[in-house]
């Protein structure tokens, strides 16, 4: 074995051009495996990081019957305008939801987070219409940026903080309609609120005209009801674990809130899921194709090498080498070429990946999966050895005289 290794190293040094050619070919095999697989994976992961939670946001609520038995139910036991004011979601009266139900929703394995939300419709105090107010829980559950309004959607002013119960945010269109500005006061019910920000969120499940803290809205609602509701909540803001788990999350929410509950959500999660699936499968299929093809290429390199060296093998056999010695010699050379080329290929791939534009890479950065590195190192060696065994055995089985005659 030691002799085989020594002769193989000697041969490698003696045939420098052949060595360079073989190592260069294996270099490309290793590099192609790592670069192509990584790029397919990076494309999948980056697109997935963008699409992961697209549309995976919902508001759940429980509509309240407007007619119960013989009698008409008002939206709430409102003391001023019971037909128009009250707990409203999607323009419909709603029931109160308990904190325990929200906690149960949070415990669903398909739900990332859930937080209480309060929506109350109140008579307009400028003109004759109605305003919808959203009360946001600002104490730590960061669901509202995706379901109601995010800090990045502030057009002017500052996003309200927890404890700022006398400050509100108004939607851009609402502010335009009523001529409101940041810093001005707006009378709602018995209270005057300072406008802290004008916001412009896109269509959201919890869309309202005015946003304030949950505690602030509860305080306002107390003054509008005949019967005081204990810490009322009439909607739950939910962020599913991701678009892929959105349907399961909805099923869990429906089972917790009951069959009469309703969930308002986007339809965008379906194309997002489809696009993620396409990218995912593409990455796997391309990785599979590259591994298979490069294995064949590595085998071809070694096969060609042995075929070209049948004359050398004939000479070795003529001077007394045994078949197994020839095979071991070829295999050892193949290993040296494969390992050297593979390591160089993986290193080259790393360099190339770090030279690619940074905006191609998402949150995962320029990392390369370990299994891809493993494949990049293993394939040249495995392909070389496999083809080396087959072709060396074939060459070794031939008669020495035949080989030398054909040379």
């Amino acid at each position, binding site marked *: 074995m030691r002799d085989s290794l020594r002769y193989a190293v000697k041969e490698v040094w003696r045939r420098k051009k052949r060595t360079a050619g073989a190592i*260069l070919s294996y270099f490309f095999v290793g590099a192609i495996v790592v670069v192509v697989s990584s790029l397919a994976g990076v494309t999948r992961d980056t697109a997935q990081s963008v699409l992961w939670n697209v549309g995976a946001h919902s508001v759940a609520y429980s*509509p309240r019957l407007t007619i119960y038995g013989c009698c008409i139910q008002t939206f709430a036991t409102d003391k001023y305008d019971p037909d128009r004011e009250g707990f409203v979601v*999607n323009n419909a009266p709603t029931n109160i939801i308990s904190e325990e139900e929200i906690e149960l929703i949070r415990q669903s394995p398909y739900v990332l987070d859930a937080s209480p939300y309060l929506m109350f419709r109140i008579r307009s105090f400028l003109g004759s219409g109605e305003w919808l107010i959203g009360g946001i829980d600002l104490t730590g559950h960061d669901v509202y940026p995706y379901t109601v309004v995010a800090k990045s959607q502030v057009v002017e002013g500052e996003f309200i903080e927890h404890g700022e119960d006398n400050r509100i945010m108004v939607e851009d269109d609402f502010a335009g*309609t009523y001529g409101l500005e940041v810093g001005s006061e707006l009378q709602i019910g018995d209270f005057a609120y300072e406008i802290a920000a004008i916001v412009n969120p896109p269509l959201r499940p919890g869309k309202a005209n005015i946003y304030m803290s949950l505690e602030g809205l509860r305080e306002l609602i107390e003054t509008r009801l005949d019967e005081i509701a204990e810490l009322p909540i009439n909607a739950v803001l939910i962020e599913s674990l991701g678009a892929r788990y959105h349907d399961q999350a909805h099923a869990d929410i429906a089972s917790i809130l009951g069959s009469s509950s309703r969930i308002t959500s986007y339809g965008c999660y379906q194309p*997002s899921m489809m696009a993620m699936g396409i990218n995912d499968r593409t990455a796997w299929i*391309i990785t599979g194709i590259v591994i298979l093809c490069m294995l064949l290429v590595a085998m071809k390199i070694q096969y060609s090498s042995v075929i070209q060296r049948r004359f050398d093998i004939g000479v070795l056999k003529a001077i007394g080498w045994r078949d197994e010695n020839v095979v071991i010699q070829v295999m050892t050379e193949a290993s040296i070429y494969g390992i050297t080329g593979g390591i160089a290929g993986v290193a080259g791939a790393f360099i190339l990946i770090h030279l690619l534009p940074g905006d191609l890479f998402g949150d995962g950065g320029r990392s390369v999966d370990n299994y891809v590195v493993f494949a990049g190192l293993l394939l040249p060696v495995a392909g070389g050895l496999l083809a080396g065994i087959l072709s060396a055995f074939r060459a070794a089985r031939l008669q020495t005289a035949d080989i030398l005659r054909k040379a």
Partner: protein
Amino acid sequence: MRNMIGYAWKETRRRKGRSMGTMLGYLVAVAFLVITITFAGISRFGAAEALQYTGAQFIGIIYDAGLEGGGVEFRDAGKEGLLIYNNPTVLFPVSLAEEVGRSPNVRNAAPLLTFTVRTDEYVERSWILSGFDASDMESVRMVSCSATDIVEGRLIEPGDSDVVLLEQTFADAEQYGVGDILYFDDREFEVVGILSPGIRPVKADIYMTLDDANWVLNTRIEEPVHGVINAVLVDGASSLANRSAMNDTREILGFNSSTIGYGCFSPAGTAIGITARGMQLLGLIVFITILLLVMSSQYYSVVERDNDIGILKAIGWSDRNVVSQVIGESFLHSVIGGLAGVAIATFLIVSFPVGQWLGLEESFTATFDPLVLIAGFFLTVLAGVIAGFISALVSLRLKPAEILRKL
């Protein structure tokens, strides 16, 4: 030239094993190139198809900043009005919607009339009505994203009259079902379908045809109006063009105009861009590395033949003849291997349900970009010939005596 190919063919037949190995290398390289680039193209197409119109729907409106009733005088102005998300709007001619539809960034634009009405004198709840053009199925798709959003009954069809669709939350609260009758000013409207409470650019309780909505509106206002709407439903040309479509719509609608739409067009557009860039880069890298691999492989094949070249030179072949012979062989091998690779890649892609593997619709059939086939084949042949030429030149620099001494 004929001699060159003739000798190359002779040599190919004489050295079957070596020739097979070289051609096999070309076959695998070209097949890998064509399959990988085709897969990348199909994936890019599939992801773009899935996300092309995601979130690219919105409405364009003009706010009534003066709170003047939007150009019409409601008889019950305190409780009825041209309200969208509780904000008063103004009427504008249908021709503006047609103008929006002519924008290059808009795929479709449809008229919409939406307003709030009081139910009746006994129950003073306000309902939101929306009238759309049922003959324009694109607008129906926008109001109800797809037929799957119908939880019961059917959509309104072209030619329908005196029929309504109800939002599920509204139907729950008011306890209406399919087949029930709603009354507006003694005119009967049959409920034909119930919609799920998904997020839509226009949220209403009741959806009906534009003509019917116009009729209901005229029963509520002092001066009847015709050919006017207060919103235009816009389908952007794509999620990538949606921002431009919004700008165009605001520009056409003019002063105090606004757009309300989804936010998911932005990540959808980003994901399309990521997938497209990733797959293009992957294709480019595969192309370049495969060409380099082919060149290194061909170089390796020729340097192994120093002995042959030495013998040819020793028996009197001129340098030109040797180079011609090597180029001829490279050309022959690359043409045969390349053609076989193209054929096998085509066969594999046509034979296997590539689209279904990637999760595309069943109707999808894989098509080839002829440019990939042609460029893959010709560039591989060119790379093989160039590598053959370079390696033959390198071998020629050696003296025949030196080559033969090394045998």
